[in-house]
């Protein structure tokens, strides 16, 4: 964010289906952080938000001090909050209901190093190096250098205040770092904030083998010279993404919190959002939360499609030739347009009770098309609501059984065994987890066993058996 361009009172409208649920108005959110089973974030001017599940949010409790664009990181037994300026406060918990909830002053961490120093010491971003255990802080703004200093991982304070910081970027806001596969990635927001739908905010990235740079983009341009590969820009009805914060959900599942400068469905208010983070060719890119729609659900393991265990009927009939089509003969077709298979017609031959699910070669048949729909008021998880998965054109719903197998029920009744968490994985495919397993660190997930069978087994991020694609049917 930029000093002098604070957003005025933000208009909050009723939530819609396109972003998080509940009260999500915020600007410059701190990285969404879990504490005591709840999720917390803090924005400019206080404005804390809290959520029980990562989907539905409500106003939280204002911490000891407020300021601009804070960031929060959990290290050891403390949560450090860095506030533009840059100062720090810390607490053993973010949960105001806990007896350990007590913010303590940590003092000044960074600022102007000298008169005329070309830096705007705001928008701090904390980074714990998973490779070394060392703690770092980046800061800077749309004018001046982006800098990195090392912190004491025990106290959260600056480790060598007598040593000058390192310049690693220029004219970047809301920077932070992440580590992936041998590289340090510097993510920052370019463009203008605080102008509603006229905000040009977008998030870019460069990478380096060293935490102190140089950070170059995919074209080799240093971020101190304007480089930066796009991670996420405006799209759909959402404008101006900024303030990236990594959320490591589990092995193979990463997400990031950020804000949109303007959500058209909320009167162009600035709002919180959470998206999957993908990795393509060694670069982070924004993924997509699951969207309502009708899909072929394809196993990455072998390309087979999830289907009802019923006898399929060829679309338009078994014979492809012999009709009145051009050229006639074996390949002549019928000479007319074959409509999509009518599920009402073919399902008349399906059993009326529970039907097993299995995998099969995709043949564009009715028992192979699934409609995925968000279920209102059923809760959710980081970034998404729970979904039901039904055969398209019917209410027949995929469900988990008590012994961790799969079945389809004649109708969706809203039971937890019929609700599904669908997370996009870092390779762009998805994992499908029943609600009961939603918060498990190693949940049971939809698994392709063999080439024709499905079950629920402990999620293995390194196995294609747990990876699924939602294709245009």
């Amino acid at each position, binding site marked *: 964010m930029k000093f002098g361009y604070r957003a005025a009172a933000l208009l909050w409208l009723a939530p819609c289906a396109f972003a998080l649920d509940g009260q999500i108005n915020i600007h410059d959110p701190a990285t969404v952080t879990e504490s005591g089973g709840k999720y917390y974030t803090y924005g400019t001017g206080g404005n804390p938000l809290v959520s029980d599940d990562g989907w539905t949010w409500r106003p939280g409790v204002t911490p000891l001090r407020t300021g601009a664009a804070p960031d929060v990181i959990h290290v050891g037994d403390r949560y450090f909050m860095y506030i533009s300026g840059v100062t720090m406060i810390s607490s053993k918990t973010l949960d105001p209901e806990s007896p350990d909830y007590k913010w303590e002053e940590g003092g000044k961490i960074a600022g102007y190093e000298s008169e005329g120093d070309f830096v705007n010491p705001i928008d701090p971003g904390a980074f714990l190096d998973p490779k070394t255990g060392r703690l770092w802080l980046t800061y800077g703004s749309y004018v001046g250098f982006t800098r990195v200093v090392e912190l004491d991982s025990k106290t959260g304070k600056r480790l060598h205040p007598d040593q000058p910081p390192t310049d690693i970027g220029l004219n970047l806001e809301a920077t932070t770092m992440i580590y992936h596969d041998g590289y340090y990635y510097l993510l920052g927001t370019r463009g203008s904030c605080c102008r509603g739908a006229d905000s040009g905010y977008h998030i870019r990235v460069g990478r380096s083998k060293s935490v102190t740079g140089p950070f170059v983009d995919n074209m080799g341009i240093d971020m101190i010279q304007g480089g930066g590969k796009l991670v996420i820009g405006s799209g759909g009805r959402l404008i101006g993404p900024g303030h990236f914060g990594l959320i490591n959900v589990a092995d193979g599942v990463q997400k990031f919190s950020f804000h949109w400068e303007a959500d058209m469905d909320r009167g162009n208010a600035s709002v919180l959002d959470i998206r999957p983070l993908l990795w393509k060719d060694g670069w982070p890119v924004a993924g997509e939360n699951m969207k309502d729609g009708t899909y072929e659900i394809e196993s990455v393991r072998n390309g087979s499609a999830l289907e009802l265990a019923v*006898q*399929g009927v060829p679309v338009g009939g078994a014979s492809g030739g012999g009709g009145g089509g051009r050229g006639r003969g*074996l390949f002549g077709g019928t000479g007319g347009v074959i409509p999509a298979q009518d599920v009402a017609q073919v399902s008349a031959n399906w059993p009326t009770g529970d039907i097993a699910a299995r995998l099969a070669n995709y043949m564009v048949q009715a028992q192979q098309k699934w409609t995925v729909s968000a279920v209102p008021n059923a809760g959710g998880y980081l970034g998404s609501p729970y979904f039901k998965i039904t055969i398209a054109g019917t209410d027949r719903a995929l469900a988990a059984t008590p*012994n961790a*197998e799969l079945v389809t029920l004649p109708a969706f009744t809203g039971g937890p065994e019929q609700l599904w968490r669908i997370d996009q994985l870092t390779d762009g495919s998805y994992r499908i987890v029943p609600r009961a397993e939603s918060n498990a660190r190693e949940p049971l997930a939809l698994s392709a*066993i*063999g080439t*024709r*069978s499905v*079950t629920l087994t402990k999620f293995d991020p390194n196995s294609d058996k747990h990876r699924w694609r939602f294709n245009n049917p």
Partner: protein
Amino acid sequence: MNKIRNLTLALTLLGTSQAMAAAAGNPSAAHDAEISTFIGPVTTAEAAPSPDGFIQRWVVLEPINVGNQQPQDATRQTIKKEFFPNQLTVVPRDGDKVKVNDQELAWHALDSRKYNVSLYHFASQWKKSASNALFWAVTVVNVPKEMHNVRLAVGSNASSVWWVNGEEVAGVYGDIQTVVDDGVSQRLTLKKGPNILRGAIINGSGGSDFCARLLDENGNPIKGFTVSIGGATK
């Protein structure tokens, strides 16, 4: 292109089948040698699974002619028919005979030399056709203690249905080739001692075979068991 490819394949297989049939009508050492590279008689009281966990010892009934049938429904309708008494419960011994449609068919114990059981060579050995055929295969798996969360994993050419201790647990359907772990059952419990595995395999034309093994909760093959077929040792 598929129909052309299938036509070519069918002609190729027809040629192979005719050659094999001719060989079967005039047995030769080469023919016997070919069969023996795939299957052989049972000569020990117990057998272990292969290093990859495949069950290689079975008692197989000479093929029943049922006509060509590829769709799932056709296979399911066929196996619902009772071809011989107690077909879903009998534990046959080598040399036992049953009468099917006024034809006497024999059960034969065999040990496969491969991971899979070649029904094509089995039929040829007994001078039968593997085309338009229904094969029944039974074996007994002895486990040292009760085992939970076990899965039966099968592959077959072509359709097949499988039972463990009398309960239908798996099936693969269509005009398909044998693929390792093509169809996998839900989690099963194997009781301590003998457990009966049974398969019905239906073949249209060309080669026919099946493979079967038991997998643990993590999908790894189980090997800690023996296979024994009463009266099968020669």
